[in-house]
């Protein structure tokens, strides 16, 4: 069977003011009809650029500098805008990542579908509408006759993504480019969408290019896979071959970094070295600052604490906690309709353990963290910290001891560091604020030492956050939490914004730190595999309610609740191969 799409030695360049930047370097890729071709790689690998090049939507000023894109006998690189416009949508279409933004919120689903259908074929609105209905039925929407006149916001995330797929299908294309189609969705919905894509591909004999960063997704549905790294093809072949028997070091490292559900590791075997800053960075050091110094300083506190309280009560416990958010504006006329984010949560974190909290979006994971650190006030229930009552939000005094001993690492390293402050200022702020050290020299030395402890060059303290990558920023955020000498650390999805290899590094770091300092950690994640690697015990939340609490081993062997079982079975993973 001949190939539908054949990319031959294609390079894409972006002229910048620092010279030409090669985004894609001599790419070869072939897609057959009825096959799903996966493109996998970390951020910046050029996955999306490849997709954009094929559909002719390269962001300006990028251009294809050499090579051919052969699409059923036509060379796409030579098409003018006019003929490309006719091709795009009708023969090649695209599924975008975020169903929230890829549909026009002001138009009904029917309008958007009919408009697209009529754009590419000459039929009357009524026929177009019946075709739209048929399509929506095909992709698994219920009550299509009624729902077709709804607006996008009336559909759930998964349903909206189905509508986006219908939109992509409505002109009978031969090739679909799906750019991270399930990244914004919960696992249970992700599974359904992937199944839908698979079915459509087989039934309609479509060629699909599936772009993703998730090797689990690749393993789940693709036939062929191409591994990209910084614009180059690292490895390509059938999915079974590439993932089952990776020949390139990078592919192996990438796979080793993916948290797995079938076995628990002490550490992730690393790993793709992050191209760290230049050697000049590593030679700059403060005299006598070292990771050991930081360790000693951080541990000094703990030894004192240990001698004081050796009882084994929980570090933090939460009893019958309710958090209620008011909906809409306050009004005198009627009581506000309230939304219960958490109801009747009881849990305890023992000293030195990592308690994993799992749940889908909207399950109240982050609200739990915010209640404990005092950003949200609970409407009922009590919290204790080391056996003492922990006052909620505004009642917690600014100098309360828990302010220092409970620290938090946030999800998004791009917004958790103040961009206008140098790394030195960011890390030294807690030291100064809590009065942990007063001598300027000592503070500088501590900052440098702690940076080394989190495996960053000491010179990083002179720079600003925007000069670092996401992983490096997250290390800085961890350093900031550590210098407060906390006893209890809350990690709210600390790796969900990071690439897998970086994720593995950060998880290793957190694990090491936890073992050295005996920190107790509340580890929040939507990723079951990450929890499995990190946590000692697991708590499952569903729509604000506690579903299950169990030891990790036991939980992953045999979850007792049906909801947990469902979560576990729907997480795409690598365990099917090997």
């Amino acid at each position, binding site marked *: 069977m001949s190939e539908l799409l054949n990319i031959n030695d294609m390079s894409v360049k972006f002229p910048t003011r620092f010279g030409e930047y090669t985004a894609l370097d001599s790419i070869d890729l072939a897609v057959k009809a009825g096959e799903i071709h996966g493109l996998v790689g970390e951020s910046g690998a050029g996955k999306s650029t490849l997709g954009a090049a094929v559909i002719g939507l390269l962001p300006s000023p990028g251009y294809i500098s050499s090579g051919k894109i052969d699409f059923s006998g036509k060379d796409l690189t030579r098409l003018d805008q006019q003929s490309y416009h006719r091709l795009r949508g009708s023969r090649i279409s695209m599924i975008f990542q975020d169903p929230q933004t890829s549909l026009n919120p002001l138009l009904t689903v029917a309008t958007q579908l009919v408009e697209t259908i009529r754009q590419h074929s000459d039929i009357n609105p009524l026929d177009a509408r019946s075709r739209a209905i048929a399509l929506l039925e095909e992709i698994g929407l219920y009550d299509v006759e009624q729902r077709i006149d709804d607006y996008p916001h009336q559909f759930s995330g998964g349903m909206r993504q189905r509508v986006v797929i219908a939109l992509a299908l409505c002109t009978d294309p031969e090739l679909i480019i799906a750019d991270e189609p399930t990244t914004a969705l919960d696992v249970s919905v992700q599974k359904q969408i992937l199944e839908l894509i698979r079915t459509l591909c087989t039934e309609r004999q479509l060629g699909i290019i599936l772009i993703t960063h998730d090797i689990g997704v690749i393993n789940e549905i693709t036939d062929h896979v191409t591994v990209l790294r910084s614009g180059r093809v690292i490895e390509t072949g059938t999915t079974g071959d590439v993932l089952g028997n990776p020949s390139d070091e990078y592919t192996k490292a990438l796979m080793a970094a993916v948290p797995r559900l079938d076995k628990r590791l002490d550490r992730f075997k690393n790993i793709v070295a992050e191209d760290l800053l230049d050697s000049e960075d590593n030679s700059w050091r403060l005299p006598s600052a070292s990771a050991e110094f930081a360790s000693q300083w951080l541990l000094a506190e703990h030894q004192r604490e240990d001698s004081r309280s050796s009882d084994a009560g929980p570090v933090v416990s939460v009893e019958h906690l309710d958090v209620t958010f008011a909906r809409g504006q306050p009004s005198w006329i009627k009581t506000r309709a309230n939304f219960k984010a958490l109801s009747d949560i009881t849990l305890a974190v023992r000293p030195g353990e990592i308690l994993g909290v799992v749940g889908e979006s909207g399950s109240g994971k982050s609200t739990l963290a915010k209640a404990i*650190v005092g950003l949200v006030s609970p409407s009922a229930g009590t919290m204790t910290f080391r056996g003492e009552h922990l006052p909620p939000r505004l009642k917690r*005094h*600014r*100098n309360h001891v828990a302010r220092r001993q409970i620290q938090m690492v946030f999800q*998004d390293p791009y917004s*958790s560091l103040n*961009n*206008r*402050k140098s790394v030195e200022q960011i890390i030294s702020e807690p030291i100064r*604020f809590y009065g942990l050290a007063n001598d300027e020299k000592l503070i500088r030395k501590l900052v440098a030492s702690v940076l080394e402890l989190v495996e960053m060059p000491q010179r990083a303290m002179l720079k600003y956050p925007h000069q670092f990558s996401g992983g490096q920023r997250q290390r800085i955020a961890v350093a900031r939490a550590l210098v407060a000498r906390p006893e209890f650390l809350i990690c709210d999805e600390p790796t969900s914004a990071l690439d897998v290899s970086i994720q593995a590094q950060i998880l290793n770091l957190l694990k090491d730190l936890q073992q050295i300092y005996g920190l107790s950690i509340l580890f929040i994640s939507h990723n079951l595999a990450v929890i499995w690697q990190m946590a000692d015990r697991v708590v499952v939340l569903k729509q604000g309610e506690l579903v299950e609490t169990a030891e990790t081993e036991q939980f992953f062997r045999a979850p007792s609740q049906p909801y947990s079982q469902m979560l576990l079975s729907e997480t795409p993973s690598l365990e099917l191969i090997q």
Partner: protein
Amino acid sequence: MFANWRRIARENEFLYLFLHNRVAQFAALISLLCLSGAALAPWIAPTNPYDIASIDIMDSLVAPAWSDEGDERFLLGTDDQGRDLFSAILYGTRLSLLVGLLSIGFASVLGVSVGLMAGYLGGAFDAIVMRIADVQLSLPAILTALLIDGIARGVLPTDQHDNLMIVVLTVAIGLSLWVNFARTARASTLVERNKEYVQACEIMGMHPLRIMLTHILPNIMGPILVILTVDLAVAVLLEATLSFLGVGVPANQPSLGTLIRIGTEYMFSGEWWIVIFPSAMLITMIVAINILGDFLRDVLNPRLR
């Protein structure tokens, strides 16, 4: 704050865009010329228009130096009292810019602190302050300035009028312009305050004032800087308008507005230079500052690029 400015200067992005934008460079040059002309007026002006002794009524209404009836002592001619127009324009620009800068400083400090607090604290303070701002927005700025100016004139003792006029003008113009700063600061603060670095500060138990001043303020400086430039032009214009209407600076102190007012009386009697040159100066300055403001906005707001 200083580290912040140093960083802005180091951002090669800013310099790069500036060095590739002829219009912005030209505008910067003009603004710089106006500014240095104003600042150095006592040294570069041929005569001192404040010095009554140097003015000879016999020299009144002399045409520019290059025309037939011109006098080489007066490059741009003289006004009805025999003041050298070139000197008067330099001193007038000095006064206009001084009032503009002072009032914009006043407006920005007031507006930014109010906006910052409204955005960060929310609640009743936000609601009340922003409604006041809305009410004020519904009045034209010139009306607010006239009102405050009029009240001040009525309240202040007559013999102090001339000395206090600059202060009154500053307050009047400042109070009519603070709303822009407050709204911009509030909007930017609302974005920043939900970011996780602010939450990190709150968890630590930092004082709200410290969070606002040391963490949020540096992060909202970009848009504030843009408003600062654009509104400087507006403030200079407002001062000129008030002086033109005769409620601005005292008559014996030339500002661009007073010069233009004097000029209009002679506009159709052949002495065109008295109105043309001060107006040209005012327009050039305003346009240059506005172009700079637009350039700043484009640089600091990547979405418009």
